[in-house]
């Protein structure tokens, strides 16, 4: 794995570092045999059953072929003009779930939404997140609530809905509302101005109403700090694209914090280096310092990490404040002691870097503590960040939570008459208060009070309610969002509602007794809102007609002057804000006065911060994962199966435990010889938990981390009872716990589903003679083939200060490989490929933050099946695109690199030579083609693939054949024992991309470079009678990427972006030395690391 000139160590996991014997022997096998790989276990079919099925199969096939089934072709009655069957239609809309939103384009085929793409004109610049990509599957979730009704328990104790018509339920609800003395509405932050308007109407009719907004991952103190210091209770507009020095304190802004897609797009601008910038790399690149306890996605991308116990955050922020104050002449420096010895020096270096970049630096903090947030604001004031990297125009309006009002709510809940819970699940995810909340709701329901859930799913909360009035999925409904000041986005329906659901807005309008206009009253309400408030505020469109048609077409309206945002539109939003803080827009003229005053406030806050950490030996840090959120995505199998980027685990949450290293090659955990997947028992805040462990690099030695959002009891077939829920053990709205016992091993999880050691390549070992060889090529190695080279180029990296040398070394190395390759037996067939199109991809490892949007986009685009936890534990996952994670550098705080790995479309492909039936072969356009209907499943190709990117369909994951025994129970071995097969249901199958074959059992599949998109783009060019232009083809992973890390195109077009990236000085081919001539160029990873940082 190492590249020898670069003395820095590179490793994939602890097993790789220690050369664990089990792991080494397992890696020798292409298809490792697992302990639980027991076929007799798999199905109940005996040999006799097999014969029966064969007999029946042959008979059925014969009969079936005698009479061909009659297929019907049913045309439209009246064809809508914009729909042509076979051609995709795109609608501009917005993905919304809870307080999360992202402007998107929805691809529909024959009236079915099948894919989400980013909205190129929106603030996220066309990027998407894994959650947005996966959201289309939720529309077709078979567990969705299908009608309004009364919640009942069925015989097996599972909640179900007894249908009541909308007219009847409305009557019932209104009758209860009209006599209610206290009405509570509970929701996440509501970012829709029209929905807030509808709630306002509701409140004006029922004056006893209180609307409480909360967030499972609260930033309430950040809002409060801004309110108290700047009179603006919002998240300001952070400009990561301007910041040259970023210090993030326990803040996962690239993965989960507030608006990660937007931040990642901005952040990557200062991380990508062009060839011209190489000489000045240290200046051109931003410096990113992360202060945290466990490794977060953002932390893994940082140049420097400062390890802290969560209880030490206060003193660290205090020290950073004082250091910056001293350097900027605002106070005196102070020093503190930390459990990680290097922290003191590192914080000093961080402060120095911040001050060096004064005016272009940015400190962000995700800790929900008022004093810390005030101190951080103070640091930013001293660094003159306000007005440059932090703006009060176009500020973020996605967060409105208020922790205090939540405490008040829970206290008063017992006396409420009506509780309406919008798209939220407080009985599960209200930190520390979930239990109290669910008890109160249960009690109210028992007392015959109206407890109403508006969620479109049966959730832990809805199950306790008396009634449900389910909302549409966002792809079925009208709506709007106002995520930033002056930015307005529309949600428009892309399909007719599948079930008897109704939009929340219409429900509120109905109950408020508002005049309902037309067939779609909420649409009319929204339209009139927009016309009333936004038509005059904007200056682009003159007529009402032009205004509405254009905003509907674009799905958005951005006011040229954000501060001209109509006041009455905002007042609706602000009035709904329980805190009623005065929401004046701070303008630049009074910022100076305010900031002087604010600085005093923050000095006070900083001095009152505790200057020492807790004495507790173990602390728990709780975090949010990019796939599960606070649990609202639990029933989405795409997200469950998407590996957590940092830990590479699926279908579970884990206890991340630190690794101790004695300086030699001796690694252990603090709890003895634990291995990944061992079950431990520990007490957290007096509750006993049993969790599987994963040994994690970059983890503070006294800190254990667990993801929240797992362990939902009632989520649906896929999501129920996956992992362990810790929300109840939180100390209020904070995400670390100091009352933790020492974990003790109690067993091992046989279904440990981490994909880290699946499909790895390039690992090394020593043979019997002590000679170093490659593990996966051991057999070949004995015979001395070129393939047994131990010095293999997989991953290259450099630091910004050494970049020129790094680039020279790389050039030297590539020259050597190319020389070797020119002496090979296989002639280059370049003359063939240079004739026409020659498709290629380039990936900038510096831009890739590992967020995983591409992996889910690939699943959605290419009908890649989900296999379930049991199958993943057997290395049977089918993802065409995986993100390999590499650690390198210092073992204690290693740097991390993410390397998206998919079929490399080698022009000298080893898989093609070995296929006995030529099912995989090469096209003249440089594509490695896979022909499923020719494949007989020998798996020779997968054995011969040096990148391990070929996947075998072990079972019938998509129900393609007639034998139900081949189908896979996704819940096999899981606590949720409901029989659950994926893609066997006609509703779920509606998400399939009709242009891509659904593969059946027994064939190999792999990345096709989205050949359906290539063909489509070529056809469009031919129909228009023009040549193919660069950028006409965008493959699915490329278009999903928030940071633009992937480019794709024709390398024969010398002007194309991909050929420029391929010729970049940082460019290299993985395993170039084995002469496979791959088509994917990687651009070397560079970190802006200062060797004296911790000195």
């Amino acid at each position, binding site marked *: 794995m190492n590249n020898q000139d670069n003395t820095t160590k590179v490793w994939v996991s602890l097993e790789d570092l220690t050369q664990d014997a089990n792991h080494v022997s397992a890696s020798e096998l292409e298809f490792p045999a697992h302990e639980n790989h027991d076929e007799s276990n798999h199905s109940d079919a005996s040999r006799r059953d097999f014969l029966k099925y064969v007999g029946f199969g042959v008979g059925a096939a014969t009969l079936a072929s005698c009479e061909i089934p009659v297929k019907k072709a049913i045309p439209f009655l009246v064809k809508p003009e914009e729909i042509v069957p076979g051609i995709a239609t795109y609608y501009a809309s917005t993905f919304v779930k809870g307080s999360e939103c992202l402007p998107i384009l929805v691809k529909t085929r024959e009236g079915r939404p099948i894919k989400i793409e980013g909205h190129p004109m929106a603030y996220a610049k066309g990027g998407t997140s894994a959650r947005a990509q996966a959201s289309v599957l939720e529309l077709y979730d078979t567990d969705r609530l299908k009608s309004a009704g009364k919640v009942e328990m069925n015989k097996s104790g599972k909640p179900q809905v007894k249908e009541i018509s909308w007219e009847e339920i409305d009557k019932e609800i209104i009758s209860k509302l009209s006599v209610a003395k206290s009405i509570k509405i509970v929701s996440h932050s509501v970012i829709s101005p029209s929905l807030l308007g509808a709630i306002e109407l509701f409140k004006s009719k029922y004056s006893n109403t209180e609307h409480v907004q909360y967030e499972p991952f609260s930033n309430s103190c950040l809002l409060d700090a801004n309110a108290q210091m700047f009179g603006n209770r919002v998240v300001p507009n952070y400009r990561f694209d301007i910041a040259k020095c970023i210090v993030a304190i326990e803040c996962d802004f690239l993965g989960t914090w507030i608006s990660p897609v937007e931040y990642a797009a901005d952040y990557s601008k200062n991380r990508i280096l062009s060839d011209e910038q190489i000489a000045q790399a240290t200046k051109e690149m931003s410096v990113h310092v992360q202060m945290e306890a466990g490794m977060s996605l953002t932390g893994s991308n940082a140049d420097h990490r400062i390890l802290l116990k969560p209880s030490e955050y206060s003193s660290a922020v205090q020290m950073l404040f004082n250091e910056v104050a001293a350097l900027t002449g605002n106070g005196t420096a102070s020093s503190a002691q930390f459990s990680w010895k290097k922290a003191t020096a590192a914080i000093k270096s961080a402060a120095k870097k911040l001050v060096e970049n004064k005016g272009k630096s940015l400190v962000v903090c995700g800790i929900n503590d008022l004093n810390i947030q005030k101190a951080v604001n103070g640091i930013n004031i001293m660094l003159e960040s306000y007005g440059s990297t932090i703006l009060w125009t176009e500020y973020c309006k996605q967060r409105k939570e208020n922790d205090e009002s939540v405490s008040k709510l829970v206290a008063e809940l017992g006396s409420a008459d009506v509780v309406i819970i919008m798209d939220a699940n407080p009985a599960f995810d209200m930190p520390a208060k979930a239990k109290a909340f669910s008890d109160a709701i249960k009690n109210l329901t028992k007392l015959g009070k109206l407890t109403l859930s508006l969620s479109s799913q049966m959730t832990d909360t809805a199950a306790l309610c008396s009634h449900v009035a389910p909302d549409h999925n966002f792809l079925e409904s009208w709506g709007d969002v106002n995520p930033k000041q002056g930015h307005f986005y529309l949600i428009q329906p892309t399909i007719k509602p599948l079930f008897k659901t109704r939009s929340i807005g219409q429900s509120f309008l109905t109950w408020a007794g508002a005049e309902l206009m037309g067939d779609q009253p909420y649409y009319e309400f929204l339209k009139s809102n927009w016309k009333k408030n936004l038509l005059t505020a904007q200056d682009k469109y003159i007529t009402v007609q032009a205004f509405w048609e254009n905003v509907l077409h674009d799905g958005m309206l951005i006011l040229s002057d954000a501060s001209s945002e109509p006041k009455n539109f905002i007042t609706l939003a602000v009035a709904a804000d329980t805190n009623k803080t005065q929401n004046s827009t701070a303008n630049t003229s009074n910022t100076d006065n305010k900031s002087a005053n604010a600085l005093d406030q923050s000095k006070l806050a900083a001095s009152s911060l505790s200057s020492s950490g807790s004495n507790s030996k173990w602390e728990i840090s709780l975090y949010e994962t990019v796939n599960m959120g606070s649990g609202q995505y639990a029933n989405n199998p795409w997200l469950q199966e998407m590996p957590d980027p940092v830990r590479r685990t699926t279908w579970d949450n884990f206890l991340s435990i630190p690794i101790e290293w004695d300086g030699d090659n001796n690694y252990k955990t603090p709890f003895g010889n634990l291995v990944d997947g061992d079950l431990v028992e520990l007490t957290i805040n007096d509750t006993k938990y049993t969790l599987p462990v994963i040994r994690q690099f970059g983890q503070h030695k006294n800190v254990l981390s667990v993801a929240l959002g797992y362990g939902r009891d009632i989520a649906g077939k896929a999501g129920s009872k996956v992992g362990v829920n810790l929300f109840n053990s939180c100390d209020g709205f904070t995400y670390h716990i100091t009352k933790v016992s020492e974990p003790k091993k109690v067993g091992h999880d046989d279904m440990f589903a981490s994909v880290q050691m699946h499909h790895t390549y390039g690992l090394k070992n020593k043979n019997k003679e002590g000679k170093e060889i490659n593990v996966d090529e051991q057999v070949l190695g004995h015979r001395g083939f070129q393939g047994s080279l131990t010095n293999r180029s997989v991953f290259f990296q450099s630091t910004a200060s050494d970049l020129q040398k790094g680039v020279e070394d790389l050039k030297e190395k590539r020259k050597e490989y190319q020389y070797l390759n020119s002496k090979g037996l296989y002639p280059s067939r370049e003359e063939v490929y240079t004739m026409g199109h020659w498709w290629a991809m380039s990936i900038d490892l510096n831009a890739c933050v590992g967020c995983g949007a591409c992996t889910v986009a690939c699943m959605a685009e290419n009908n890649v099946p989900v296999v379930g936890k049991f199958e993943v534990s057997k290395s049977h996952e089918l993802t065409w695109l995986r993100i390999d994670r590499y650690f390198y550098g210092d073992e204690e705080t290693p740097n991390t690199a993410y390397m998206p790995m998919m079929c490399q479309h080698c022009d000298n492909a080893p898989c093609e030579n070995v296929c006995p039936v030529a099912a995989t072969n090469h096209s003249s356009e440089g594509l490695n083609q896979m022909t499923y209907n020719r494949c007989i499943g020998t798996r020779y190709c997968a054995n011969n693939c040096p990148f391990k990117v070929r996947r075998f369909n072990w079972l019938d994951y998509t129900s393609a054949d007639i034998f139900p025994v081949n189908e896979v129970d996704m819940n096999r071995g899981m606590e949720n024992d409901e029989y659950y097969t994926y893609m066997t249901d006609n509703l779920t199958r509606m998400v399939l991309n009709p*242009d891509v074959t659904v593969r059946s059992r027994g064939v190999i599949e792999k990345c096709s470079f989205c050949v359906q998109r290539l063909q489509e783009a070529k056809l469009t060019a031919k129909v228009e009678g023009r040549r193919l232009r660069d950028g006409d083809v965008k493959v699915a992973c490329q278009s999903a990427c928030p940071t633009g890390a992937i480019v794709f195109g024709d390398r024969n077009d010398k002007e194309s972006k991909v050929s420029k990236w391929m010729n970049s000085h940082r460019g290299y081919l993985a395993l170039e030395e084995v002469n496979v001539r791959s088509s994917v160029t990687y651009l070397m990873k560079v970190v802006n690391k200062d060797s004296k940082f911790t000195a």
Partner: protein
Amino acid sequence: MTFTLSLRTLLASIFTIFTLQLAHSQDPKLGEALFKDNCASCHSRDMKKDMTGPALAGVEERWAKFPKEELYSWIRNSSGVLANSSLKSNSYVKGLYASYNNAVMTPFPSLKDEEIASLLLYIKNVAESGCAAPPCQDATAAAGAGSTTTETKKDESDNSTLIWVLIGLLAIATVLLGRYINSLKRMAQHKDGVHVEDEKSILQIILNPTVVKILIFAVVLFGGYTTVNNAIGLGRQQNYQPEQPIKFSHALHAGKHAIDCQYCHDGARRSKHSVIPATNTCMNCHTAVQNGPEHGTAEILKIYASSGFNPISNKTPQYGQYFKEAVNADERLEVYRKWLKEANKDNKNVTEAEINAQLNAAKPMIGKPINWVKIHNLPDHAYFNHAQHVTVGKVACQDCHGKVEEMAIVKQHAPLSMGWCVNCHRQTKVKFDENGYYNAKTATHKMYEQYHNEIKSGKRAGVTVEEIGGLECQKCHY
């Protein structure tokens, strides 16, 4: 007497010559062609119904009181006649004009006198006979032609049978002759006193182990060959000709009326699917065309039922209206019954029972899309795109679908097998010069440039689909 006779004969012959000449200048065939090209879009084809323009039956009688020239100039340029108040027919035309919502008839200034005469004759023929003589003749002629072609085909197949019979006879003759010669030889040998073995019977020869082995081998070989060949054909349905829910005749629409294929199948030029037209596409014509030549109202009623069209409406008699959704099936059926009676009042073949049958057939279609039976089914793992072939490749529909314009009931013409696709890709030349995609000046493709040069130098005549990669797996399978 002779004189009178001869005079009569003379007169008669003159008259005959005259009428013949007249008939010559008034060619009903020419009239039919003219009518179809110019008049049929506004005037009813059976001349009996008012449409956009009035029913034309009896037009000459109506104009008898005015000079013939005025009718002719009315046909050529109606607004001229309307403007000229000095004409005798002026007041009549004005009334006519007003009763048709002041819609001006398209002027046809280039029509010659004899053409108009032909047109009028054709109108008269159709109006009187109910069936225009020439088209009827055409139909028989077409049928005749059809039968002749089948006969020729039969002849060809007869030939081959004949050859096989001849071969068989020759073979038998050869065997017989062989045996005869053999017997003669043996007799000769016997005569010469040479010892001759007993002659083997045919059965003995057949049961000879070598022959049995060869036979078994042949059976296995032949059996295997047939099995494989038939197995390959499994799932293919060449000549598949299912009954459709509506007896829609492509021969009538695409053939006789020469409606362009892509008028209805409008997806073919831009999409993967050619698209089966929505019912409202049918209604573009069938609001006006309410009676078909073959099935009368029976099949058209089904379209009305599906689309919700109300053929009886007071406001705009020629276009009718659509039912509101609230109007239920039974109410609609009553309207249809009324319409059927009205439309078929001249047709004695349509009895009450027949009307009931038509209504029953249409009932399940009310408000529902038409469930056509899909004829061309490709396997799911094969990708086919109509736009690629129709717009880019400029392939005629008939190349794959056969002469649909001659099919009363469509059947699958091509086998749709992979071999068939591949063969076509091997032989068909792409539109290399026409399409800008292959244009040498802009293409980054060296290959295209090379092909262009080779074409210029006469080295090659064109570029086949195969030569631009059209046989690679992932052009059709992904």
